[in-house]
């Protein structure tokens, strides 16, 4: 009798609670999914002799690794930086460890693919000001487990 009662309390009750918790959880809103690879293009190609042209090509890739609101951005294939940042609503802000690159962008979800538009600021190239770019997530990629180096 004691075992049956214990079984009902220790197994039955949590099982019921489990259903209630799952129902409650369905109302939660997690951050927007942005993980994956984005193909980015600068709005205006930098002058070949400028400081920013040494750091950025007119086209580059942004690889985003997302864990909830936390983001790691790898700028590669035309850029080279690792940034850490956050997503809040549809706004992404990130910067690298030594604060030399600052990244701000807005995500726009669309049926034809997700788009990103924003700015990059390079502290060592102050004369370039903020550099505008647009990016498109034109292929579905999962948040990468093993980051490419």
């Amino acid at each position: 009798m004691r075992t049956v009662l214990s079984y009902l309390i220790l197994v039955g009750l949590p099982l019921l609670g489990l259903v209630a918790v799952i129902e409650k959880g369905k109302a939660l809103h997690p951050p927007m999914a942005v993980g994956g690879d984005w193909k980015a293009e600068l709005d205006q190609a930098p002058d070949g002799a400028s400081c920013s042209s040494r750091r950025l090509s007119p086209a580059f890739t942004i690889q985003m690794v997302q864990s909830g609101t936390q983001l790691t951005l790898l700028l590669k294939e035309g850029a080279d930086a690792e940034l850490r940042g956050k997503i809040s609503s549809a706004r992404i802000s990130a910067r690298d460890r030594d604060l030399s690159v600052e990244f701000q962008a807005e995500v726009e979800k669309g049926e034809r693919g997700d788009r990103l538009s924003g700015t990059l600021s390079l502290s060592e190239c102050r004369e370039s000001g903020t550099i505008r770019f647009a990016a498109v997530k034109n292929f579905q990629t999962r948040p990468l487990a093993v980051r490419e180096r």
Partner: protein
Amino acid sequence: MHVSTLLLQIGLILVAARLTGLIFRKLHQPQVVGEMAAGILLGPSFLGSVAPHVSAAVFPPESLSHLGALSQIGLILFMFLVGLELKPQLLREKGEAAVLTSHVSIVIPMFLGILLSIYLYPRLSDDSVSFLHFALFMGTAMSITAFPVLARILTERKLLKTEIGSVSIASAAVDDVTAWCVLAGVVLMVRSGEGGLPLWVTIAGSLAYVCLMVFGVRHLLKKLADAHRRQGRTNGGLLAVILLLILGSAWVTEKLGIHALFGAFLVGAIMPKEESFVNSLTGKMQDVVVVLLLPLFFALTGLKTNIGSIAGAEMWFYCFLVTGVAIVGKLGGATIAAHITGLSWRQAGAIGVLMNTRGLIQLVVLNIGLEIGVISPDLFTMMVIMALVTTFMTTPLLDWLYPQSTRKPAAELVA
């Protein structure tokens, strides 16, 4: 990719696994804990951090698919061995103690894992994952017990024939089967939304396949055991048939949309459990799988684990929370249940400690979760830390809670 890179990788992984395993054995830890730690050391958490150029040269991203394929073969064979070790009579023999302990040690951590998901989902997940999938996966990951590691610890500590040994091994067997069934359901739900087979086809196909294996193929397997008995050994032909069955079953479950590992586990679980047959098969496969192939899996897991990504107090708080909830749910739940069935608090606590061992089964589950995209890379890292902590704490806690002097054989206790 050059074969030389792959050979270099395998060599380095084996050296790291054996050395770390040896060090951990000196610390009275099972070899496998050291091998798990070796994987972390070879990844971005250590090698990639202290010698990034060496790491990039030895583990270039394009080479990892070859290592991944080898480790998948290793995991498929390992899951077969896990299934092979399961003995349904264990549960029958231990009766109500094992039933209550196992069910409570599944349901309580699962409930707490799902409850924790309410807090973690908005913080560590995103809107590409539904709450249901996230919560069910977290619940399953929290309720895992590493049956093979548990069996090794019990054997090494000469606890297998004690009351706590027999209750915990029987409970872990039930836990394993239940966790894999729930996990298969989660994988099925996630993959059905990805444009694969329709959900009803996967469910009906999976049920039909399990029935075919349990009621059909199992009888054929008995013939294989008979052949082994007649010949007195497992010859090459017999082994080839069993390997084909394992790979074939893994292929079917992968095609059905549940994971290849379930198929391999199922073949092991329905294998006849005649001791000489099981020992012979285990002997033929275990060394290559455990010594050569599993360390590759640990290394790949380590390459995906970046402890450096757990940056800042907030992320470490989540990590402590995950580990704490896992320990409270599993250790606490199993301890209370075992005590209710009549065991002393000391014995019940020892069972709780043993059931709390997550080991490499947890790593297998976490890799599936990461692969299907239901957990994020940072949460993956936190759960790997939790698996390491819960496995590492088992032997010292067990020796403290249940020292040699207090151990009695099961028969004596039952009498």
